[in-house]
């Protein structure tokens, strides 16, 4: 129908890799150029958060993380979580905030949320390296499973891109999305075993609730990250953690959200020009 819409299709996402990169770098530069510590803030925040939780839960409340140091236990889930959260929340308003370029330059608009995600990914990677340093410092064995890390990050990124496309497009038309996302994020944070141990939930919760709890794909992602980061974690996993809720659900869910995001974005993209300026 419209030739321009064709060019916007994501099949040529790699054709635009330079533009995505340029936009992501713009995001990072805008964020970190002025502060004195610049890029380091992105590394300091999750580690400091982990430290706070560690002090709170372990030293004050004596909630333990089981066999492994609680700090490592926390940080392995908090880092991916902060990647997830900042990327999704950052992209909610990304299309709306770039209306000056969206209305006036013809380029594939989906690149804006995608580049926001990429910027956060570029933040995430150095954090992973520091995390590996901590793991080594705590004398924890790094198993060969670490080789699966890129695949997990990729899968996670697909999920985030899907969600970003979804919320950034919807936000243009329905400005309530932003607050909705905040609430969901808060709920999800406490529904994933990030700051408490999974074993506790399984031990204390009723079997049906645990079953439902385990269906949360983010639980699966948290487990996956822990499995690859902490050598030997796989062997002490509770019985309830199985292939279905750790691998199949996250994969299917990520793919599903990516497709949904793609279609919703394409559908709403046409309405942008009606809504961007009001």
């Amino acid at each position, binding site marked *: *129908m*419209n*030739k*321009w*819409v064709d*060019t916007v299709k994501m099949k040529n996402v790699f054709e635009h890799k*330079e*533009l995505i990169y*340029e*936009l992501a770098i*713009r995001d990072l*530069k*805008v964020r970190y*150029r*002025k502060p004195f510590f610049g890029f380091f803030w992105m590394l300091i925040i999750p580690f400091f958060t982990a430290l706070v939780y560690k002090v709170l839960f372990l030293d004050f409340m004596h909630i333990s993380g089981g066999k492994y140091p609680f700090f490592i236990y926390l940080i392995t889930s908090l880092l991916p979580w902060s990647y997830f959260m900042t990327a999704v929340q950052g992209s909610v308003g990304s299309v709306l905030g*770039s209306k*000056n*370029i969206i*209305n*006036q*330059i*013809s*380029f594939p608009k989906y690149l804006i949320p995608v580049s926001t995600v990429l910027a956060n990914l570029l933040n995430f990677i150095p954090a992973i390296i520091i995390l590996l340093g901590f793991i080594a410092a705590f004398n924890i064995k790094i198993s060969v499973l670490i080789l699966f890390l890129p695949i997990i990050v990729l899968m996670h990124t697909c999920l985030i891109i899907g969600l970003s496309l979804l919320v950034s497009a919807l936000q243009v*038309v*329905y400005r309530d999305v932003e607050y909705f996302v905040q609430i969901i994020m808060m709920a999800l944070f406490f529904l994933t075993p990030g700051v408490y141990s999974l074993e506790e939930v399984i031990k204390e919760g009723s079997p049906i609730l645990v079953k439902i709890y385990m269906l949360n794909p983010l639980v699966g992602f948290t487990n996956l990250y822990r499995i690859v980061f902490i050598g030997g974690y796989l062997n002490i996993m509770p019985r309830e953690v199985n292939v279905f809720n750790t691998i199949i659900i996250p994969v299917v869910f990520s793919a599903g959200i990516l497709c949904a995001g793609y279609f919703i974005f394409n559908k709403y993209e*046409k*309405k942008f*020009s*009606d*809504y961007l300026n*009001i």
Partner: protein
Amino acid sequence: MEIIRLNNAGRKFNKIDKRADSKDVLKSRGSVFWALRNIYMNIHKEEIIGIIGRNGSGKTTLLNIIAGSLWVSEGEIIVNGKVSALLTLGAGFQDEFTGQENIYLNASLLGMKREEINNVYKDIVDFSELGDFINAPIGSYSAGMKMRLGFSIAIHKEFDVLVTDEIMAVGDVSFQKKCFEKMADFKRQGKSMVIATQDIGIAERFCDKLFLLEDGLIAASGAPMEVIERYQALLSKNKILSEGARSSMVTETKRWSTDMEEWGRREGTKEVVITDFAMFNKSGVKTNKIKCGETVKARVNFTVNEEIDNFHFGVAIFREDGVYCYGPNTQFDGLAIQRMGKGDGYFELECDKLPLMPGVYYLSAAIWDKNEIFAYDYYKCSCKLEISGAPVYGQLLSLRSKWYGFRMPPSRKERCVPNLDYLIDKWEKHANNSLITFEPLRFLNNYGSKDNIFLTGREFKIKLDFKIDALLKESIKESVLWVGIYRSDKVYCHGSIRKVSSCGVNSEILIYPKLDLLPGGYKVSIGIWDSAANAFLAYSHGAYSFKVISDKRDHGTVYLEHRWNLHIPKNPLQPDLNNHGYLESNFVKQNFGGHSNA
């Protein structure tokens, strides 16, 4: 080769009423506004398309669709090539980034690859004239600097079609000139362009084809002249010639040479000296004699002894009896030339098909200061021009005119030219024959309504109704109807004759598609000439008057189509405009480009 095709393209916007807000949004049931509809358009290679129309007629929406930043709601657009847009300069500039970073960001947004940007980076910086500021944050730039940078980036993208919205020129005068040169460059390179503009002059000079948009529909398309006429008609539907507008128009011009005794003399302050002033015919031979209707070129060579600014060139043509025919100068024609440095240069005035009638004419040439207070050098009527050809009843010029309806013109044998000596001393007198009754003449403007004030360059019609009694059946066989336009000071400008067809009630319309007369008062005479009797059967001499006004100043009686060729020694202080050290400008002026903005 077709680059872009729009096929029944349309674009609607949802009107979102803030009062009914969120509910409507949820149901997405806002009322619909069609900004553009039923657009069929082909853009070929090497074609310059102009889009004109009033504010809110859909120009910008159309450009955005062509540029690809808006999609179509119905129909289709097919693009086979790269489109570059100069719609919003520097969209997405980040204030905290340096000029350099913004070049990379903005150029990537425009679709350039990193390697391409590296290749043109230096050109972009050079063109923008930003120099070392390129490494400063763009937030510290002035608005003009940002525009310059945005423009420079946008034009360095490879493209087949350039889409631009009245921002062909940004920044100061010298940068604007550069922008315009660049546009002309693109035209020479055979790039296609789509230009939306309010400037009818640009639309006419620059474009190959125009589209007139009105309320989102194409109201007219085709050759620039015709479309512009339609546009003007559209504008004046809302009474363009209101009383206020008329009062601000030029109503008078200089019509006579005031100093005939000084003809042949020369004066001036001599900062610039005219070294040669001569006429050339169409084959470039220096001559003082041409045939009526031939191309003629006046060339003036000069030497600049001291740098000057604020000057203009002028040429004037007088008939030997002192009637001021036409006196174009570069200032009236809107050619702004700022300064010139020392050296030799020339200017040429070229007229295709000079419509002056046979006779002897004298030409003046001058280089004036800005306000025409003093001349740097002024040759007063020192160049004689003889126009040869069969004299046609002493009129000044041949205006383009036609009669409504076809009728065999009088054959050569029976061509009966009224002997106007007959009318000497009969100014403003009538001679009515009881057998011939003239109804009062009616002057009609281009909308067909009756008026007696007309704009230079617009259509002008004279409607004549008269009744001839059947008793004159024999004598009208050798009679012609004659209509003559005189200046109010009795200088005969133009006459037309028409064979009288039959007895009874006659109705004739004489049409001047473009009235080339300059502002002032004019009179019209009519008569029926019987060549057998060598007398007017009836006449009414200088009885009807009309006025011509214009929005442009000019000297003389008639507008002659002309063209300036300038070759000016450059000012050493100014940046190099080209490598030859000269500013070459070829300003093509046709058919009242400047008269149309009213």
